[in-house]
């Protein structure tokens, strides 16, 4: 019961974040909303593991948190530097 309530709240929050990801005027709004959605997905996976009484799902949640972080940083770097490679020429800003 408790886990079902938590899962429901997280699902509603996920839907609200996806609304901002759809209507976001700039690309940074979309990145922010997708990052929040990924963080909420981590909690959703954990709660689902407890809901089905299989806490091994926490490993997947931990992995998803790692991938979410790397993905957000990569997309931010891609958007601001128009590429994922090392800085070249007079573009000496370095990493994000």
């Amino acid at each position, binding site marked *: 019961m*408790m*886990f079902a*309530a*938590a899962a429901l*709240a*997280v699902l*509603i*929050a*996920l839907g*609200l*974040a996806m*609304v*901002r990801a759809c209507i976001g005027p*700039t690309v*940074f*709004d979309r*990145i*922010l*909303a997708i*990052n*929040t959605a990924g*963080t*909420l997905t*981590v*909690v959703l996976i*954990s*709660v689902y593991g*407890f809901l089905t009484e299989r*806490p091994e799902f*926490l*490993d997947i*949640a*931990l992995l998803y*948190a*790692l991938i979410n*972080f790397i993905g*957000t*940083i990569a997309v*931010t*770097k891609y*958007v*601001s530097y128009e590429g994922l490679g090392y800085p070249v020429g007079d573009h000496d*800003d370095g990493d*994000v």
Partner: protein
Amino acid sequence: MQWDQIADVLSWIFISGGAFFALTGTLGIIRFPDVFTRMHGAGMVDTMGIGLILVGLMFQSPDAITVIKLGLILVFIFFTSPTTCYALARASLAAGFMPMKPRQIEIMTTQHKDVVVEKKAAKKKSKDKETKSSKT
């Protein structure tokens, strides 16, 4: 009182608090006016919402390794959330977006109020017209 009942009550408190913060944080992401203010809502979800729900789950763990895994997720999100926010703010500043000045916010809110007042006036007018037309 048994330990199970105490753990259940604590879990309910923490999970409902986390759900509240997650919902209000995402509502803030929708309602705030620009990127830099929306980051506040995202930070609320990342720290309070996620943290409280995971702490609530900790009380229901069957063994110690589950608590350790939940703690690992918690610590990881606590470190990555500010990093992501910082990178995003830096990227959007570099792209030319500036945080709003107080004067701009004031103009926005007053404009919003004006729009609301105009809408109400328009509704009244149309209602009056309807009543007049129905009378005639």
